[in-house]
């Protein structure tokens, strides 16, 4: 891949990751949110793939395929099942309303851009310039975990944080060791499986997936 094409595809994919993070705040329908997460997982895999091809790094290409499979397919499918099993698949009343949280996301993006300037200055490669997008995804994920009420939305927030960290790791270093990436991916997968079981339990016990209503212990 030659210089400008490499830079612009990488930029496009990093941009897609950030836009997907914003879409999860924008849309109320949980199934649309999960779809955005799947697209984000694929874009993350594509970033790793582009870097792998650019650096002729076979291990990174394997990591890219793993990321696409786990974050683009398996995790969204698991979450999709939770969403379809509950009839009220909408984030009806988030703690911060949608326009305000979108403006919050814009502010967080600026914060990420400003805060990562020293980091960007440290990394000499082209990929290093896109590190702020990863940080912005991470911050939006935290924000999403704070302001959303549904269990699924909070899992999505956690996954956004994870994807943001993974993007920064891919862009800032010349690829993460396979073992580390494998460990991180499996960790998140396990967390989603546990949360899926937990959500199913919540659904059968209480009939809601709203974490705010779980304030007191029950016998």
């Amino acid at each position, binding site marked *: 891949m030659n210089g*400008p*094409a490499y830079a*612009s595809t990488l*930029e*496009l994919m*990093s*941009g*897609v990751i*950030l*836009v997907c993070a*914003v879409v999860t705040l*924008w849309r109320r329908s949980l199934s649309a949110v999960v779809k955005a997460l799947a697209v984000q997982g694929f874009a993350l895999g594509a970033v790793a793939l582009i870097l792998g091809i650019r650096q002729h790094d076979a291990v990174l290409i394997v990591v890219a395929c793993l990321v696409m499979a786990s974050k683009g397919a398996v995790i969204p499918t698991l979450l999709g099942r939770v969403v379809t099993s509950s009839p009220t698949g909408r984030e009806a009343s988030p703690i911060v309303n*949608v*326009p305000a949280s*979108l*403006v919050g*996301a*814009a502010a967080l*993006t*600026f914060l990420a*851009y400003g805060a990562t300037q020293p980091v960007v200055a440290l990394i000499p490669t082209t990929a290093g*310039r*896109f590190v*702020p*997008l990863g940080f*912005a995804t991470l911050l939006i994920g935290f924000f999403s975990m704070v302001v959303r009420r549904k269990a699924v939305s909070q899992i999505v927030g956690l996954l956004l944080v994870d994807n943001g960290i993974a993007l920064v790791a891919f862009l800032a270093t010349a690829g993460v060791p396979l073992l580390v990436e494998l460990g991180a991916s499996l960790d998140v997968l396990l967390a989603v499986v546990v949360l899926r079981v937990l959500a199913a339990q919540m659904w059968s016990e209480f009939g809601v997936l709203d974490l705010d209503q779980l304030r007191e212990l029950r016998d």
Partner: protein
Amino acid sequence: MTGFEEVAGAVLVAGAQIVTVAVGGLLLVGVMRKVRSRLEGRIGPPVRQPLLDLRKLFTKQRMRPEEASWVFVAAPVVLVATAMVVVAISPLATTRPPLGQSADFFAIVFVLLLGSVSLALGALDTGTPFGGMGSSRAMTIGALAEPALLVAILAMSIPAHTSNLPVLVHMGLAHPQMIASPERILALGSFVVIILAESGRLPVDNPNTHLELTMIHEAMVLEYAGPDLGLVTLGESMRLTLLLGLLVNLLVPWGVADRSGAVSFVIGLGALAGKVALAGIAIATFEVFSGKLRLFRVPELLAGGFVLAMLGAVTAMVVR
């Protein structure tokens, strides 16, 4: 080339763009209605119906409310005049429109805003409740769409180092990879949301309804009749065509004349008509499958557009 020839050429180009947009805009409205009707299983009015309606309106007697002041009379004229000025200097069929160096994107937005504000004032002028309601709604949406549009323009201007529209379109032709850049795509995505809001299309306002609870634009023009109403419909269709024309020329600039000459200009006009018609058909198809948003959910949509534009601006700064 002598000075006289230059001026005559500029006048010809501006005149051709204005006439194409005025006639083509009405035809565009006809095409959009036709597509909607066909998709809904109706035959629908003929495509040239808006032109016939306009001719009928202009032959009618001039009727104005007794309380109307000059503001009411001036509003449709200002609406059409601002649209004409912007159409004349915009890079619609050629990247070298007359007075192209003054076709700054920000300036164009503010000239168009002058038209919207004058229409809102005209609606307020007679003091009817509908006019006031329509104006207040239109201004609320306008006030939310405006910052998004300005940030979207900023996002497009940062990589090009200019907010001059002809130069932006020309750079799209010269460097096609600039169009695929994320900041352009994000900014144009937000531009689409803003066009739908500003021209009163479906998720924001239903152009076909006269239901008092939901209407925005129709409520504003309720008091107009005859030639005044004709001017309002003409101005609105010109604005829709202009905005769509700018969108398609920023998104797919191919076909726009990049050098002076009659042949390439005529090709440019044809390409413009084709691209805008396709965009109109796409919007009409989208409208069939979508419902109107609740008025209180419209800010959510526009906030989304604003954030897209903001992300575009941030990406543009990151990459620079």
